[in-house]
């Protein structure tokens, strides 16, 4: 069984969870032996941006020592052998055309998503 995880919403609960739950789940499924890849679309394409910094949050005396490192988490997906696709037009409309992004991502156009889905037995939209 080959599954494509579509991750769309960006920055939902990432500061509290210290990662993105959809990305975490994809990583964990892969570690458990799943044949899974990821498609980043919508606001989640911003996860590929290198210069994100969520550090420094403090609530009274409590300081967050482990802020989310979303770009690193995405990079860890590719280093685990997952294909990570990213929608080109979603990057463009967010002004990410010339911004440094992590490597090893595979661009796909909006028109190319339908063909991509055909390569998978299951499509899970997180």
């Amino acid at each position, binding site marked *: 069984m080959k599954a494509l995880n579509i991750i*769309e919403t960006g920055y939902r609960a990432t500061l509290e969870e210290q990662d993105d739950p959809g990305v975490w789940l994809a990583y964990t499924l892969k570690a458990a032996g799943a044949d899974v890849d990821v498609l980043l679309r*919508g606001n989640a394409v911003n996860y590929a941006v290198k210069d994100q910094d969520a550090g420094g949050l403090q609530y009274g005396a409590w300081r967050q020592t482990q802020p989310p490192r979303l770009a690193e988490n995405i990079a860890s997906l590719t280093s685990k052998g997952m294909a990570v696709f990213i929608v080109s037009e979603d990057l463009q409309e967010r002004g990410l055309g010339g911004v440094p992004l992590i490597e090893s991502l595979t661009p796909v156009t909006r028109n190319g998503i*339908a063909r991509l*889905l055909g390569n998978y037995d299951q499509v899970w*939209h997180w």
Partner: protein
Amino acid sequence: MANYLLIESRDPYGSNDTQFCCDLAKQLAQQGDAVTVFLVQNGVFPARAGARADELSALAKAGIEILADEFSLRERGIPTDRLTAGVKPAPLDVVIDRLADGCKAIWH
């Protein structure tokens, strides 16, 4: 040929991402797949006759089956005999039918 069920729970007035479902449905149909769009929850809002429903109209024009959850319609006071052209009311059971038949189902 694969079978797809796209479940659209969002409406085009509060969400600007309903175009994703519409475009995907058209692309799948163009490449020869069978696709149904199933509207549920606030996704049925554009199914009311007279509502702004550009995306539904485009889907209907492309010959794509558009079903709207009967309960969601009733819950919102949308009469099933006055729906946007191309939209048919259907029980939520259809989703289970299609899942049981092996449709690739994507919730949006």
